């Protein structure tokens, strides 16, 4: 049974249809990437999975249970967390408070403290900055905090929306290395949305190409990297 399955999902903003019948499936432990041009519907796909932009038609199954009509907080409770586009750190909460918000639905305080230490070990700069308001961090630090905050929920599935956007190459490589590490050490399943198809296809296992609200291609990353169309449209070759 796949961990997450989308079956013919259609999402609208008012009368504008952003997703035109999307189907995809993710197995536990995989890293899947979703690539596509601006406005293709990548962020909408993630917001639809999280219940913020619920679909008008289609089914979403998580661990076999339908979640397409569930409230966002219910979906988080089931084990799906998102690092949204633009990081969206709470600017006036400290780093520690931002992390605590990530663990909002958890009650196991000793485990929460352990997870925080684990994340501080991945991103030591966050530990240094822990009493600072989130809004005073640099873009790269905010991205680290956003990922850490999502991981504080101990999700089974982590959705990442363009984590490398606006970051220096060195920092985005660090972020990608850690995404890989989280996937291996914690067995966290990852759905990664990226414009940087080159990097994404290198760390993912499989990928989907989204165009204009529809999935137009799918396959393992080696296949996609070799695909002429992908090369031309997304790899700039």
């Amino acid at each position: 049974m796949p961990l997450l399955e989308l079956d013919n999902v259609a999402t609208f903003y008012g009368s504008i249809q952003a997703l035109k019948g999307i189907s995809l499936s993710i197995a536990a432990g995989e890293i899947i990437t979703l690539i596509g041009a601006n406005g293709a519907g990548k962020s909408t796909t993630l917001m639809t999975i999280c219940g913020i932009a619920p679909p008008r038609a289609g089914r979403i199954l998580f661990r076999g249970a339908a979640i397409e009509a569930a409230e966002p907080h219910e979906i988080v409770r089931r084990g799906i967390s998102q690092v949204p586009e633009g990081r969206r750190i709470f600017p006036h909460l400290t780093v520690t408070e931002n992390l605590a918000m990530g663990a909002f639905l958890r009650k196991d305080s000793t485990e929460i403290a352990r997870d925080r230490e684990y994340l501080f070990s991945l991103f030591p700069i966050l530990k240094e900055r822990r009493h600072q308001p989130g809004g005073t961090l640099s873009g790269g630090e905010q991205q680290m905090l956003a990922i850490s905050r999502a991981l504080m929920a101990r999700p089974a599935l982590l959705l990442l929306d363009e984590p490398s956007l606006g970051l220096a190459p060195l920092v985005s490589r660090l972020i990608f290395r850690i995404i890989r590490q989280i996937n291996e050490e914690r067995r966290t399943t990852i759905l990664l949305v990226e414009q940087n198809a080159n990097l994404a296809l290198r760390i993912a296992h499989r990928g989907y190409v989204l165009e204009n609200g529809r999935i137009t291609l799918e396959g393992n990353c080696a296949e996609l990297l070799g695909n002429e169309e992908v090369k031309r449209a997304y790899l700039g070759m």
Partner: protein
Amino acid sequence: MDYFLELLIGGLTRGSIYALIALGYTMVYGIIELINFAHGEIYMLGAFTALIVASVLTLHGMTGLSVLILASVVAVLYAAAYGFTVEKIAYKPLRQAPRLSPLISAIGMSIFLQNYVLLAQTSDFLPFPNLLPALPFLDPYSRFIGPTEFVIVLTTALATVALSCFIKFTRLGRAMRATAQDRGMAMLLGVNVNAVISTTFIVGSALAAIGGILIATHVGRINFAIGFIAGIKAFTAAVLGGIGSIPGAVLGGLVLGWTESFATGYLSSDYEDVFAFCLLVLILILRPAGILGRSTVQKV
């Protein structure tokens, strides 16, 4: 000097009441960016509920402090239930609507609640019993401060500290701050935003009810319209301090209270409200975000 002290304490008392009500305005604004015009009516309902409960208990032979405590508890719960219900009926259905719609709905709620009390009770002023026991330790200072003034200032201080601790240190308080800063992100982290908004209305309404009971005890009479002017003054205080800011609401309340007290004491008592609004205009010209308000927009 005595006169100065008298005015100082008078202003502190007034300002405390403004602060208690302003806290509700500022909390609600912080979370959903709505000026809850029905908030003053919650304050009035709190005073009325306390009056009714106190009258019933007195009829049954109860006296003294126990009447005050019971009446206050019932009034606070009742007002909190009203605040909760007003949000559910008048604001929640309009959450996605243009910003003007909930504002108009709020004004409608305010008019409705005033007229509801007018019809259910009376348009006359009703006497409100002084339920406070004597506080003999205040006797030497009785020229400056009476028992109701003392209790008003003390209660406001305690309520403000309790609220600040709640918002700063509890899980729900943190979720409130997060929701105020980025509601969508709070949802993505598992916060039940509807519950947070309801909590905000409940807490704000409870504080307003406390203010209503205290001022009714102090002034000794109430009618259906007392929420209107108090609401406008408290709203002024919230804007003065920086709407959305909790310390700002308290500071704004005190500044407004003192301005009114000193201006009427030293200048003229005919223009009490004029001074309040002149101060508002002045501060908004000098500091548009209010005394403690954040000058930058905090919405992402």
